[in-house]
């Protein structure tokens, strides 16, 4: 750490810029050398994106994707946290339910698409349902884990002050588990964002995922494909960064320090 502590401030900007520039250059010359007619250069991607912005379609696609994620994700949070806390609180109940969760969890949300379409038809509801499925199981599993990881010492201290049942859960176990739960919620948001794009490629006809598949199918517009991918990356990154802000709240920050 000490070897470049003096230069750290500038290096923080310099190295990423350098690497990104190198990456773009490599991309550009790779396109030129391979002589591909289909795969776009960075410059073409930029033109394609500009074209989409002018057309006004892009904004609608972004809003559609985010709306689907928001609804599905909040539904998953709303059902997943209470269920997870309940299962973490009553280990005997968890033993009963856990095998079902473990079987459902490895099923790709995408594999639910035929079922989602039967239940909800092609459209928003199907995509929202997929996001819900993708986020729900990780949230439940994290809650169960983080509740059972709460040190015995905190539970004892809480019950020593006369807390029982729901009070102990609300005033001791939940705050003690919160940092770990938040990490799980952030990961689940990331999964929701992965799933919505995939879902839109199949089950609906708007959104960034649809933009990708549509750009390819109608005229091999690979500049738009790559442009949409970059947008998906940037928006996902922004969601992640916003969520990380929560982790700096004082009541929670203790859980994110490195030392024991």
């Amino acid at each position, binding site marked *: 750490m000490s070897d470049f502590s003096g230069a750290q401030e500038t290096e923080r900007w310099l190295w990423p810029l350098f690497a990104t520039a190198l990456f773009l250059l490599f991309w550009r010359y790779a396109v030129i050398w391979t002589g591909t007619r289909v795969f776009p250069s960075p410059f073409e991607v930029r033109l394609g994106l500009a074209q989409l912005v002018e057309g006004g379609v892009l904004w609608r696609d972004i809003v559609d994707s985010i709306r689907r994620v928001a609804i599905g994700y909040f539904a998953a949070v709303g059902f997943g946290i209470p269920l997870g806390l309940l299962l973490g609180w009553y280990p005997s109940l968890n033993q009963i339910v856990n095998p079902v969760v473990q079987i459902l969890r490895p099923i790709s949300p995408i594999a639910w698409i035929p079922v989602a379409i039967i239940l909800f038809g092609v459209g928003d509801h199907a995509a929202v349902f997929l996001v819900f499925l993708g986020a729900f199981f990780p949230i439940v599993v994290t809650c169960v884990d983080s509740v059972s990881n709460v040190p015995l010492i905190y539970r004892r201290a809480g019950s*020593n002050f006369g807390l029982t049942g729901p009070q102990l859960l609300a005033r001791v176990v939940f705050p003690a588990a*919160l940092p770990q739960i938040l990490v799980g919620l952030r990961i689940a948001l990331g999964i929701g964002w992965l799933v919505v794009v995939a879902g839109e490629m199949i089950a609906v006809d708007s959104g960034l995922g649809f933009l990708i598949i549509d750009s390819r199918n109608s005229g091999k517009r690979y500049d738009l494909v790559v442009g949409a991918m970059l947008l998906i990356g940037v928006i996902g990154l922004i969601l992640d960064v916003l969520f990380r802000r929560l982790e700096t709240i004082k009541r929670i*920050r203790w859980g994110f320090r490195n030392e024991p």
Partner: protein
Amino acid sequence: MSSSASARAVTAAEPPMPGLPIKLRTENVGMAFLRDDKTLPVLENINLEVGNGEFVCLLGPSGCGKSTLLSAMAGFLRPTSGAILIDGEIVRGADPRRIFVFQERGVFPWLTVEGNIGFGLRKLPAKERAERVGHYIQMVGLEGFEKSYPHELSGGMKQRVEVARALAVNPDVMFLDEPFGALDSITRMVMRIELLRIWQAERKTILFVTHDIDEAVQLADRVVVMSARPGRIQQIVSIDIPHPRDISSPRYLELRDGILSQIGLAHRL
């Protein structure tokens, strides 16, 4: 040479300091844990009487079951055999009238100093609660840190928060499980002095677990020396030196050496 005689070796449950009504009594308490389908005896035949307002130290090597005994007294564990009685009633669970002080690890990291100390006072009206919290913050010397979170405090300060949190609910009995074990030696001395000051002001019954012989002799009215595997009471030593104790007085050294040789150690390195 004279150590065992002068330390007034006592075999069975010696009655507490004369004139004190019995607060806590253990009757033939035994504990055993199941490990790999084998029962592992941890405590055997613990008979002990503690008077109201008495300061008793449980002293023994690590693994002698002293912390287990303390947890059972606080109601976190059930004895496998025998019974623990407080005020003549069998202990059946944790109770706010008797508070357990962990090492500073028991402080809730998601609450401020104020929030921690007021944790057991949620039934009081806000104004009264604030007064009580303020009083105990002052008593343990944490003025100015009311809004701080535990991760911003030193180990000694966290320990004070825990003691204040326990005192704030005005318990009859306090159980302290090696409360100063994680502190540096200077802070540890300061904390002992403060604990004695608070004990003399509030006259709680205190059961204090330690593996530090000096700590036990400096603090306690009586020291319960325990042996390991399974944990038994080996001897109960009354410390008949008035506070404040002169830790270089002949009597102090005599009592300490007596306990040292009881444990099987010479008092010379």
